[in-house]
């Protein structure tokens, strides 16, 4: 009777996987309050990486550091390095606007623009100077988000008229339209019903073939269903998040290395 395979085939050895982000000593502050301390790990390419942890541990802060969305929050400051395509995105030469085109983001509450479905998807390409066939881009993105069949006859209707799950898929299509290579998802299913949630999870697994996906979730089962690797963040009393454990999801959820990880994922936390 042999032990089960210690790592999944998709994640044979994390150290050998090609990386899309390298975080080194990332720390972040909102004014005087430190939200993250010394986060160091690598996010691999074309895999789904989940970030889990109790509320207030800094998961959202961490994911928003990856596309510099935190810059929009007054008083925010980051130290350390985040390397993306061999460049430090917090370096002096980095342009956040350009960065955000290549790193798509989907938010917790679906936020389609109050425009038509078509214009929602077309906005990104238009703003970034796309000069090709817009209909192709819109159809392609909606197909990739598995929404085309449901909206192909009503591209002119308002994005807000769709159901919650459809709105979220519209937001995904919108993000995909500018052809990013990374998709960041901040609790994308927490505002959705279970059926819509499962559809989005399936979509995520499918998208991971072409994109690198980072997903923040507070739902343990979702992290274990959907992700290849998982990072567990924990904040102490000072509410500063630190990385406790990072590894293949299969290992983290069957035999976590750190007892705090085990306490959290089995629900015996505090």
């Amino acid at each position, binding site marked *: 009777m042999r032990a089960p395979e210690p790592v999944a085939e998709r994640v044979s050895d994390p150290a050998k996987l090609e990386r899309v982000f390298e975080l080194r000593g990332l720390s972040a502050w909102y004014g005087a309050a430190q939200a993250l301390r010394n986060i160091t790990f690598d996010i691999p390419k074309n895999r789904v990486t989940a970030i889990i942890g109790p509320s207030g541990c800094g998961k959202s802060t961490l994911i928003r550091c990856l596309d510099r969305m935190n810059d929009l929050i007054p008083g925010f400051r980051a130290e350390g390095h985040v390397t993306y395509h061999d460049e430090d995105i917090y370096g002096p030469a980095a342009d956040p606007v350009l960065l*955000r*085109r*290549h790193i798509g983001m989907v938010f917790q509450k679906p936020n389609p*623009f*109050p425009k038509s479905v078509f214009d929602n998807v077309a*906005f990104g390409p238009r703003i970034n100077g796309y000069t090709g066939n817009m209909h192709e881009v819109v159809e392609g993105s909606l197909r990739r988000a598995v929404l085309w069949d449901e909206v192909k006859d009503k591209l002119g209707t308002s994005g807000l008229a769709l159901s919650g799950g459809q709105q979220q898929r519209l*937001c995904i299509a919108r*993000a995909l339209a500018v052809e990013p290579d990374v998709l960041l998802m901040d609790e994308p299913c927490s505002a959705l019903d279970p059926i819509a949630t499962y559809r989005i999870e399936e979509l995520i697994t499918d998208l991971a073939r072409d994109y690198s996906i980072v997903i923040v979730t507070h739902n343990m089962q979702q992290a274990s269903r959907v992700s290849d690797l998982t990072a567990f963040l924990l904040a102490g009393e000072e509410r500063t998040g630190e990385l406790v454990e990072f590894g293949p999801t299969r290992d983290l959820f069957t035999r976590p290395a750190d007892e705090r990880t085990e306490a959290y994922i089995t629900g015996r936390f505090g």
Partner: protein
Amino acid sequence: MSAAVAERMRWRPTVAGRRRSGRLFLLLCYAATAVGILALVVLLADTLIKGAPGLSWQFLTSYPSRFAERSGLLAALVGTFYVAVIVVAVAFPIGIASAVWLEEYVSPGPLRRILETNIGNLAGVPSIIYGMLGLAVFVRALSLQRSLLAGGLTIAILVLPIVIINAQEALRAVPSGLRHASFALGATRWETIRHHVLPAALPGILTGTILALSRAIGEAAPIILISSIAFIAFLPDSLLDSFTILPIQIFIWVSKPQAAFHAIAASAIIVLLVMLLTMNAVAIVLRDRARRGVGW
């Protein structure tokens, strides 16, 4: 009685007493509202009775004269219209741009707090002070004389704080998710404002605009200082010409001893009220449509 019932009776036996105090309070509210409405109704009735007979097309298209039966609102209406145009042309662009800058570009902090506090204070400054400001700056320092331009600019400055505050509220009401989504697609701040924030805030801004305008055309005090309370029986030829406005015309007629002039003053009041009510109604319709998200 059973133990259970006795137990329940430990809690006040009936709700009737509590309901009574509620009803009393409701009654007091009705009474208070009635007082306000009654006062308004009495004023309106008085005005309508006095002024309705004087309303006619001739009334609206004649110049004022020494004779009450031949006096009309033409000069005042045209003057009011020109002032409104100047206010729109000057206060709205400046006001909306200021609001956008404050709300979207300046980060919260001491600078913003100081600016917003001061703007709020300015909104509460008595209009006569603005009149004095207009007199000193526009009429005298800039040598614009007692002209339409000076009057219009003065009123524009008067409503500017209101426009800014309203526009800021409208911008603030735009959900931040919209901005985030736009930024996340690689849009610049200006692109986000132009394509998403302003269009979404537009109904709110327009509503505030119309309300500011209705305030503007009802202001008499500053114009009393700027313009002369002269007998204006002509239409202004240029921006630097003399002018009069509706509230001032009303003031002039009310100040005359003859009852006939009081009557046509009442008629003029009706005209002013109709204008104000119409503008407010338009503002409410716009706000409704904006809330329901209906396209225009």
